[in-house]
């Protein structure tokens, strides 16, 4: 179970234009997660940032579905439904928060909210 060998075998399974395998889905999901994370770290607009967290959630969901199919076990797909639900709840919360913040500062830039910080001590 050497990790290196493991991953070599893993990537070897990815054949160009071949049959769709588990690995394709996992790579898609990892890519989606990475895109979401990078977006979250680089964008300053709070709505975009929130959407990026949604991307990360959906990346996990894709991995779940792929594994669910792979293991022939439905619980992964059930989990996805719950992820969607929680994501919706978070969306409601996020939008409420964003509206509140926008009213206060008239901007969606996350950087303006940096009053709470370490005060440098001499």
């Amino acid at each position: 179970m050497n990790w290196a060998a493991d991953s070599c075998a893993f990537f070897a399974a990815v054949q160009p234009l071949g049959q769709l395998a588990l690995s394709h889905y996992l790579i898609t999901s990892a890519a989606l997660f990475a895109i979401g994370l990078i977006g979250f770290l680089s964008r300053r607009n709070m709505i975009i940032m929130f959407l990026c967290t949604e991307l990360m959630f959906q990346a996990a969901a894709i991995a779940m579905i792929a594994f669910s199919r792979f293991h022939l076990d439905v619980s992964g797909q059930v989990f996805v439904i719950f992820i969607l639900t929680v994501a919706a709840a978070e969306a409601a919360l996020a939008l409420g928060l964003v509206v509140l913040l926008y009213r206060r500062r008239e901007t969606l830039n996350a950087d303006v909210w940096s009053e709470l910080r370490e005060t440098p001590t001499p």
Partner: protein
Amino acid sequence: MTEAVQLSLGSGWLAAVDAARSVIAGPSWAGWILWLPLISLVLCGVCAALKIHTKLPAWITVGSLAISFVVIVALYMSYRQPMEIPLLDWFNLNWRSNDGQAGSFVAGFAFYVDKLTLLWMLFVTGLGTLIALYASEYMEPDVKRGYARFFAGISVFLFAMSCLVLADNLVMLYLGWEGVGFASYWLIGYYYTRPSAVAAAKKAFIVNRIGDLGLALGIWLIYYNFGTVEYANAQGTGLFQILASGSYKHEAGGWSIQAIPFLLMLGAFGKSAQIPLYVWLPDAMEGPTPVSALIHAATMVTAGVYLLARMLPVMELHPAALPTVAWIGGLTALLAATIGMAQYDIKRIWAYSTVSQLGFMFVGVGVLTTYGAAFHVFTHAFFKAVLFLTGGAVMHGFAGQLDIRKISGLRHMPGWQITAWTMLVGCLCLAGFPLSSGFFSKDEILAQVFAVHRPWLGFMLLFTALLTAYYTFRVWFRVCAGPVSYEMGEEHHGHGDDHHHGKADTGHKAPPRHAPPAHVAHQPHPPRFAINFVLVVITVGAIISTFSGSWVMDKVSHSSAAVLHAADSHEHHPGWVPWLAGTIAVAGIVVAWHFHLASRKSADALRARLLANPLTRWLPTAMENKWYVDEFYEWMIVTPLWIFAHALYLFDRYVIDLLFVDGVARLPKWMGRSFQPLQNGVLQSYAVLMAGGVGLAILLVVVLMPHLRPWLIGFFGGGG
């Protein structure tokens, strides 16, 4: 090295078996020894909350401590054999781990009472009561301020000290150990408006933490190796019982066993102010004088001696442990005595002499005369309490004056006779004047040192004894004898200013003091009843303790601290030692008489000039002054030691303080500051750090994974 140690490997343990086999259940009313100080603490707190500005807290404390002393006496009277007194169910854990091994961790809130315990408790509570009574008068200027706080601190101290001494297991001992440290912190910092007091309190706390860490690790290693922290129990699985039966698989080669004595030693050195951790004790004199007498001279600082005496069977786990204790004790004794010679502040002199005498006690433990050590603890507790309390009386009466150059002829002043003569008794004892209590107890240690063939250590201690006699009587001849003259201290308590007691030199920069003339008393006021009464009682105690040798020996030899062969080796004690020691004490006193009573003026003049310009002491012109010929001798003898002492003092002040105390304070702050930019308040930079941390963790594990393969196989069972 050590026939003594080897001897004890057989006999010391036998004694422990003897003590441990016959543990009986003791009377439960003994619990009041602990509960009374606790009640007094609560009542003092109530007094503070209700803003009762009378002496009520003092009477509550004195009363409850007196009752707990009576309880101890009753326990002593009814004592037949070692007792176990369970009070509360505390830690009582049993488990069976995955591999089927049973384990347990039992540490009840319970007393283990043998004769050593009783000896210690008798003088702890007895002196505690008397000194609390003394403090009721001494602290009276503070009745409207910290009076209740002070007595609450005394109650905490007595509670914690009783926990420490009465504990039947090491966890409870540790509880008391930390507790007395906390009480000491509380009381040293009593004058919290004075930065030097706060600094001293912090220093004491922090230096003690180093020792405490050692003790804590030692206790854990004891548990780790022996599976118990109890001294003895009914099932026969207590620490002493295991050690006595030798049933701990004889893994004595393992470092984790051999380290135990050294870790315990570190704890003892911290609490009892030995090299290298002695630095906190002199500064601790910032506290009120009764605290110095009770905690930093008579009782708390002997906790280290108690620990080593109690754990004597454990100390024998490594052959080099006890010799190390002896040498560290001897070196501390010498070092502190040399420093004490160069001080002018009475309390500081007594503080260094306490460090020095504690060194003697450690030598006693180290050369396996736990009897001698305990005897010296016992006599020292009395005479050092007398010395501190007389010093406190002077300070109280002279508005904080403690400089021995500024008070003279106390015994000729009206109302000061009791102070002067009780101080003389204390000085005689400390100096080891023939047939005084200090003479006998010190001799017991010295004789044993020569009996186990450690002549170098022995001569070093004899030299220390000479210095001790000299600096002790330097104080007495300066302050009590000679013509009457005095300068009042700069401060006077009780007139609403927060600076209470002056002190000459604390090693810390005190803020400029503003003492309005109206506040300065011009007339000394001699001590009144409470102080005089306590002084007389403790002095009588110090005299009586002269004859307590065989009594103390009976206590020690029926406890885990017993060293059976010590009684035998008594016969090998060289007969010349007491004669030599007595002569040396007298010689020291004579030297002190010569320089500090007979030709005091020239000594003062020279000293003043030398101090005015430090360079002059190196110049021959100073020596050529035949005028100062008497001082020349002193210069020849004393100056090298004086320089040595001052070098050490400066080392203490600038290197130890800066490097360890301040440096230790700065390093974490500096590190903290270097992490500060990370917390810049920007949401996304936090996100980057978090994601980076996660990425790093994954990367580390993934990169490490091939190297971790053997462990993984271990984890997953390696295919069954």
